[in-house]
């Protein structure tokens, strides 16, 4: 996955923040997930406007980690959620 891709939540999901966690339901698969604070932050950032690199930059600042770690974490998370069809990746 390229870091210039722009992730957006699939219409096939329903989600809510509960404190710093997020509940994500993949409706057609009847699957539920609870994301921890970093996962929830990335998930909420997937608004179809920001690309992966921009989300990772924000993550690095908020969670006070290196840009490299943040980007690696973002790529891994977004890739997993895309495989589950919870996120759609748009080209820039």
């Amino acid at each position: 996955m390229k870091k210039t891709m722009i992730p957006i939540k699939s219409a096939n999901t329903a989600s809510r923040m509960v404190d710093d966690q997020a509940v994500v339901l993949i409706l057609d698969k009847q699957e539920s997930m609870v994301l921890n604070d970093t996962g929830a932050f990335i998930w909420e950032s997937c608004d179809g406007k920001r690309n992966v690199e921009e989300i990772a930059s924000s993550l690095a600042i908020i969670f006070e980690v290196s840009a490299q770690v943040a980007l690696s974490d973002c790529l891994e998370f977004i890739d997993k959620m895309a495989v589950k069809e919870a996120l759609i990746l748009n080209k820039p």
Partner: protein
Amino acid sequence: MKSAAQIDRYQELYQKTISESMLFLAHWELTYSCNLKCRHCYVSKDLGRQEFGLDKAKEVINQLRELGCLYLVFSGGEIFCRKDFFEIASYARDQGFALRLMTNATKINQANIEKIAALLPLAVEISVYAASSQVHDLITGVSGSFENTLHAVQLLRKKGIPVVFKHIVMDANKTELPAVKLLAKEQGAELLFDFCLVQKDDGSDQPIQFRLNQEELRMFIDKNNLPLRNSQHSDTLLCSAGLNNIFISPYLDLHPCIGLKLKLGNLHEVPLRDIWQGSRKLDSLRKLKDSDLTACFNCGKKGYCFRCQGMAFQESGNYLAASSFDCEVAGVVGGIIREKGGS
């Protein structure tokens, strides 16, 4: 940094919504209008009051979202009797809600099945009183309703939409459960059933006359090998009404749940957040302990009692009291346990 990978802690999070009174689920009766005339229906329209309009519906949905509510259950009356049902439901989906639809399904057809599928409901829960039109239509009071309902089930299943049969047991259909189970299996539907009929909203006892009597209840529970313990009440006799969920009527009256018609306020007059966070009645409910249930706490039947606060409230106006109906059911269950040599 912790990994951002998913963590499977749904139950833990759900418990947190209860313990911290976070609104997670709302059950909303969209209308009292219905195209059937079910003999046991509890609805009694207040002709002096108007049901909400589309703009107000959107406002309430926004308020629910702002409080963090995720699940919305739409019921009626009959939800498809509202001309703006799809506008309301689509708006709720756009706001990130997961929907469950409760319906008699008779208005589901080729013309609207795509719109229903587009809502991606977690389930469509459908009232099925029997496995034949003879008994089902007798209960609904409308000839052809069984046929229409079954046709709808097939349309929904073809679209891969999960279907749940809701089977209310009463005198006219007390022997139908095995056939309904089979029908549900054939159609790929889940089955839920209940034998609890409640008073009409205006206090009339009319629906209660259709309840099973004690002997019928004993035969029903015994013949159908029903569970004799209430797993929900394994630790407590209390329920989650008003803890992480709420009920909204078509007049926008707010109650802790559909069974517990304790009026908390009205959304035409007070914003949801003010009621959810400021209601003394909700505060009292949330602070309840089992020991507050003076009539039930030391009861010998509590291990197999399906106690409902709403039922107690309906019977006596006091949700801390014992419900005579629940006591009766617990007595029957206790008798069966003793007959089988349990304790």
